């Protein structure tokens, strides 16, 4: 499937995020795993969560960094696919609009999309599984 027809939405049931000047931090609110995105991921993030088409985002970033859109497209597609593989993005049925695409060029050098995953909380949150209901006794069944 061509990248241009992919549509995603941010998985608000499982993740929360905070935007800083040079970093996006995304938290899995269930297990405490967190992600740090830097580089071109920072200006791309508002467009991604607003469900804008990948070609539009790539074009916007190309303008910002003063480079060809083709140079951004491959990195952007790979970044979005990683977000989807981590369930940070879920497949959506339609796009939305409302962001101003007209950005002036920036002197910031393009350095690709930086994606980090941290699972420091695993020791804290590793617990026994929950047992499901017993038809005769009701829940919990242990």
């Amino acid at each position, binding site marked *: 499937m061509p990248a241009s027809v992919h549509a995603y939405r941010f998985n*608000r*049931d*499982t993740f*929360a*995020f*905070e935007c*800083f000047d*040079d*970093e996006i*931090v995304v*938290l*899995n*609110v*269930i*297990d*405490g*795993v*967190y992600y*740090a995105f830097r580089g071109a991921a920072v200006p791309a993030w508002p467009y991604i969560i607003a469900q804008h088409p990948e070609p539009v985002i790539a074009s916007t970033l190309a303008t910002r960094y003063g480079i060809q859109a083709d140079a951004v497209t491959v990195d952007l597609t790979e970044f979005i696919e990683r977000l989807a593989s981590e369930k940070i993005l879920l497949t959506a049925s339609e796009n939305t609009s409302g962001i101003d695409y007209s950005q002036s060029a920036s002197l910031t050098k393009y350095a690709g999309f930086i994606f980090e995953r*941290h699972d*420091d*909380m695993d*020791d*804290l*949150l*590793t*617990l*026994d599984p*929950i*047992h*499901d*209901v017993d*038809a*005769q*006794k*009701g*829940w*919990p069944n*242990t």
Partner: protein
Amino acid sequence: MTSMLRRDGPILNDTRAAALRNRPVNDGMIASPIELVDHLKQVVHGLDESQASGYVAELGPLRIELRLHGAGDHADFFEVFPPVRPGALSKQASRAQSVDFAIEVIDGARCGVKRPGLKWRASDFGLKRIVPAWSNNKRTTYFLRSECGLAVADWRAGHAYVWVPSIEAITARDRAAPFRWLLDGLAQRHSLTTMHAAVIGEGGIGLLVVGESGRGKSTLALAAISAGMDYLADDYCLLDARPPYRAYRLFNTAKLRADARVQSDWIADSAHKLDSVNGGKQVFNLARSAPGSLADRLEIRALILTEFTDEALPVLDTASPNEAFRRAAPSTIAQCEGSEAQVTAEIGHLVRQLPCFRIRMPRDSRLSIDRMRDLIHRLRKAPENVS
């Protein structure tokens, strides 16, 4: 099933409620949170009052009445909470008018009360890994996986019921910070947040010490006690994330690893160790061991990110807001039983508004405490110039 933004865990939406109603059920099985509330309320009314012990705790601006049914010999169970100040409860006002919330704890074995059979499934409680909870805006039902107990909070009535197989089933870790999952939901309904953080201070000014377990929060907090500074928390505190950013004490306890770097006479001499928790930690009730060090509230002026170093001297330098967020938010959010989106936004606000520092602590924690004292002094004199 419709997708809804969660508050206090998965929302009990109409689709799920209908599915519950249609699920086959045995006689006597409870089918809804309100039925569970009514059932446990009736149970409590039928219990022998002479076998109950009571306590009123003051957690910052919140007053909580706690009653333990069937375990009068465990009357010290609630002493991990700060007691209400003497005279703070008006003689004219009824107790019900004077407290914000009441928690009834039922010792199932001693009271002869079996665990209620519930119609819903474990998966209905959502994916939270510590205390899965299941909510609508009126009630939250909790699964206490460590104790194999359950609880339900009726937020509008200001009442919660906790059923445990026995008081002994509550783990030492949970006895050091009881009902934290319940206090989460209560705090958010009062515009407060429970933070996974230590808090130390001096002269009313506090430092919020954040980070995942094992990075030195407790070490620094216990060293602060040894140095005569104020101690408010080593793990969990109540925070008002609006200026002037007040932190309140939730628990009187402190934990210490058996191989901890902190050495102190008050620890060595303490005869009030409560128990060991997982990981070889000892739990102290500081209301007995070091009562003079306990602070009820402190005004937070900075965030501290701790880590250990093998160097001889501590190094204190500034940390970026995003680094502080990455250290403060994940463990707080993962343990949050309230609105994670709200807590995320509050921590994001906090790290932008307050200066953040990283301290690399050597083995001798007294040197680190000197740096904390100096920082507090500078924050008091000219907070805007501290960097």
